[in-house]
């Protein structure tokens, strides 16, 4: 087995035989031609034919990949009419008394070199367009068909690079994936692969040789990996991923864009849990209605010193803007226990899960807390932000938090900084919070139940201790009763109650949660559509 890594430009798994797309190698000879007039005529005829081909390609591309992506063939057509391009070819044929092929190749090389040197990565890719246009004319001049690459069976296409014409001319039904040595995420191959939903990896440093033809390959567009002659373990693992993706894709087609509504008409919010800005794409791919838990820890854990207000603000603003009015619930710093950052200078604790962590740190180091709150309230002007406080055990904590939050708001308002309407809620993840949820509810805008910690504290089982895995039972009646109690107390005070722990994604409990009246489930993005499918099959009236 050989493994290569490149840049993924479109995700998905492909398994199949490898086929090479070798460039039809036009070896350009420089021949002396006396009759320049006839040679120019020969070039003009080839140019006319090239224009015809491009018009046909354009029509075909419009059908396959849409007008916006097909437009590149219109650009090619205009390049054929470009005066600099034509003048140069005419000049070379006349002045050097040479053949048209040579004149076109030289001109193509010169002009594409101009683009290849440009700063802008997108513009550098246009060098490939000029080459593509020149090669088309040369192909016609030398009577070599450029449209002749026929795939006999479904294949993974490996090439040095792909021009747009090559990409669109391939029989879509038979292309499993693209792997190219060159090309960037801005190349046409990338754009077209995305449009055609074909897994694609570019920038794979791989020696292209006939030796790999017809061998089995695996393209993992999720990670950018490319395997040649995979071993059985890799093959079966990838087959499994592929099958899961297929299943998910089918589900996606079925329930994407649909409401999270039960057969009897009860609606519930399905939100996503994320831990970084890079997770935003999966929020959209999986059609989440909002973000139910944005863990802000990464801002602290990825750094060697406290993140500034500005740094945090930019991140929160970006999420708020990207979600465009959909709810984004950001949890304040939940560091401590298993998540440590050295610059916090924390003492070693006997029992960190029950130690100095989360809101306890924030209420002790108020400057750190205020910096985060300022960034959050400022970002609230750019979207629908809600703030969630973790590890609450008492009403005094909530009072203290609200006092600090009010201070921050007043400071911002008096400095003429715009803030939006921000819901403030708490996580219910300690048995104490559950037992006083009736007292907490009137003080906040929402509850979100963190089932992971709630289970470990209620059952007195350390989550990190694998020896106890067999008795760690999140379906324990104690937990389910607690959830029910929290929902009831929340609803009595008129606030909504959600679940953002792992239990929310457990489809064997979905119906039970809905019967309890849970208003929101926030889960890792890959579970959203599975849950939606489940919700749409439940009937609470029976």
């Amino acid at each position: 087995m050989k493994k290569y890594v490149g840049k993924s430009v479109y995700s998905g798994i492909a398994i199949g035989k490898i086929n090479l797309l070798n460039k039809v190698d036009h070896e350009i000879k420089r021949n002396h031609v006396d009759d320049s007039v006839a040679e120019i005529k020969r070039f003009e005829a080839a140019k006319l034919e090239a224009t015809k081909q491009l018009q046909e390609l354009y029509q075909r591309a419009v059908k396959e990949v849409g007008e916006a992506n097909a437009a590149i063939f219109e650009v090619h057509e205009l390049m054929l009419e470009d005066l600099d391009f034509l003048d140069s070819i005419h000049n070379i044929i006349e002045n050097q008394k040479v053949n048209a092929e040579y004149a076109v190749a030289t001109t193509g090389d010169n002009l594409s070199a101009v683009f290849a040197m440009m700063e802008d990565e997108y513009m550098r890719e246009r060098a490939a367009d000029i080459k593509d246009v020149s090669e088309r004319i040369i192909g016609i001049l030398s009577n070599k068909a450029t449209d002749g690459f026929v795939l006999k069976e479904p294949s993974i296409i490996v090439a040095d690079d792909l021009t747009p014409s090559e990409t669109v001319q391939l029989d879509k039904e038979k292309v499993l994936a693209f792997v190219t040595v060159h090309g960037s995420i801005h190349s046409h191959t990338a754009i077209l692969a995305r449009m055609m939903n074909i897994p694609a990896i570019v920038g794979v440093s791989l020696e292209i040789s006939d030796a790999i033809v017809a061998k089995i390959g695996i393209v993992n567009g999720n990670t950018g990996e490319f395997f040649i002659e995979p071993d059985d373990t890799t093959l079966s693992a990838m087959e499994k991923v592929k099958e899961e993706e297929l299943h998910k894709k089918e589900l996606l087609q079925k329930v994407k864009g649909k409401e999270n509504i039960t057969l009897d008409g009860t609606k519930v919010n399905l939100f996503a849990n994320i831990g970084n800005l890079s997770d935003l794409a999966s929020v959209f791919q999986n059609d989440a209605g909002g973000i139910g838990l944005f863990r802000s820890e990464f801002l602290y854990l990825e750094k060697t010193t406290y993140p500034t207000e500005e740094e945090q603000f930019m991140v929160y603003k970006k999420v708020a803007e990207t979600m465009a009015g959909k709810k984004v619930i950001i949890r304040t710093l939940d560091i401590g226990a298993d998540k440590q950052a050295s610059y916090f200078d924390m003492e070693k604790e006997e029992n960190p899960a029950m130690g100095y962590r989360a809101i306890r740190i924030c209420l002790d180091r108020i400057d750190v807390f205020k910096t985060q709150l300022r960034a959050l309230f400022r970002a609230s002007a750019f979207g629908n932000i809600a703030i969630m406080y973790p590890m609450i055990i008492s009403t005094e904590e909530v009072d203290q938090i609200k006092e600090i939050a009010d201070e921050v708001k007043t400071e911002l308002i008096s400095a003429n900084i715009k803030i939006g309407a921000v819901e403030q809620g708490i996580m219910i993840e300690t048995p104490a919070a559950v037992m006083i949820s009736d007292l907490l509810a009137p003080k906040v805008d929402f509850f979100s139940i963190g089932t992971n910690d709630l289970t470990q504290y209620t059952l007195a089982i350390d989550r990190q201790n694998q020896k106890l895995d067999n008795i760690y039972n999140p379906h324990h009646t104690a937990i389910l009763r607690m959830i029910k109690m929290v929902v009831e107390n929340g609803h009595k005070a008129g606030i909504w109650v959600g679940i953002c722990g792992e239990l929310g994604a457990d489809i064997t409990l979905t119906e039970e949660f809905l019967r309890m009246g849970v208003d929101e489930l926030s889960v890792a993005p890959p579970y959203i559509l599975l849950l939606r499918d489940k919700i749409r099959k439940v009937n609470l009236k029976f």
Partner: protein
Amino acid sequence: MKQFDYTITEEVGIHARPASLLVKEAGLYESNITLIRDGKSVDVKRLIALMALGVKYGEKVTFLIEGADEDIAAAQLEMFCTKNL
């Protein structure tokens, strides 16, 4: 001769697609149409040169239009810019 300034609001600048639209538009008129950015000028009817100039978002360019139909060409071109660039 007519002239007008225009600041590019198209996010990607004068990339392949906008450039080709501009070249097509310029081709409708007899006048010579020149685009100047930072003292460098290109013939707007020449696609490759126009693309190679690499005009970016937010940059100010000047259009010079000279010829028999310069009045109408300038007016139409300015409208084209507001709509497409």
